[in-house]
């Protein structure tokens, strides 16, 4: 698969989107964290924030938002962080998979059941 180049032709735009911020403080946003809109787009929002609110009317993973916006994951996390901070979206993570340890067998059994039903 050929990777899509970043919007390197428009570095100013990336800068504008993120307000020059270094990175998201919201380290809890994993690639597969599901995000849900809590409000409709409002006038004055950037088109990216509007797109996110539209996309996330149903739960959508951070990485899907990134793919749909065609923005790098880092930039997507920052944009989502803005919306999280203003409570326009929420992140669902009731059962985070612990890092560097195995998830419990109950969860794995549910995954197996799901795969067997495909």
């Amino acid at each position, binding site marked *: 698969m050929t990777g899509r180049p970043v919007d390197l032709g428009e570095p100013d735009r990336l800068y504008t989107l993120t307000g020059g911020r270094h990175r998201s403080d919201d380290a809890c946003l994993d*690639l597969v964290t599901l995000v849900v809109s809590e409000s409709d787009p409002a006038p004055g929002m950037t088109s990216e924030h509007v797109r996110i609110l539209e996309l996330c009317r149903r739960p959508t993973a951070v990485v899907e938002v990134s793919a749909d916006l065609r923005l790098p994951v880092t930039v997507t996390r920052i944009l989502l962080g803005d919306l999280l901070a203003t409570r326009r979206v929420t992140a669902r993570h009731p059962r985070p998979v612990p*890092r560097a340890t195995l998830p419990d067998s109950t969860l794995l059994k549910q995954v197996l059941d799901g795969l067997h039903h495909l």
Partner: protein
Amino acid sequence: MDSTTSDPALRAPLGPAADTGLKIVVVGGFGVGKTTLVRSVSEIRPLNTEEVLTQAGVGVDDPSGAAGKNTTTVAFDFGRITLDARLVLYVFGAPGQKRFWFLWERLFGGTLGAVVLVDTRRLADSWYAIDRLEHHGTPFVVAVNRFAEAVPHGLADVREALSLSADVPMLDCDARERASATSVLIGLVNHLYDLSTARETT
């Protein structure tokens, strides 16, 4: 617009009760069939995106300088499998290049486990991936993607050539076939389940 990026409007959304995203990563050398496997198991056309990082691997220090030579762009693809009303599994095709491993924790930390896809004509291409997974303590299975042109090798021979320990499961597959590709994921999750129950009873 990349032709593999599907229009979100045409993609079935997750159900309203979906609350837990899980991930499995497919790794292996260039052209071994990672994207093919993702496509075979996915309920959506595979999507792709990328991460842009500085060499230090901490983040985009200065997005305005993203074209600078000290940033690295790593593209990867992924598919999706809805497991039940709440659980959704994302399957990632890792990039073939070695430098991607600097991003492993950042991108794929917290993954359930990995599939190492192997082409018997280029076994050496998978050594690095196996070494890195062991280093990160990520559980994995090895799937031999059967390319028609390849001289058939028994799984035992492949195990020996890769110096794999006996407790790493091995499977044959044809990444192009949905049933075969799905059975690889089932093989991995069975392995994880065994590891998990063994740990819980000790």
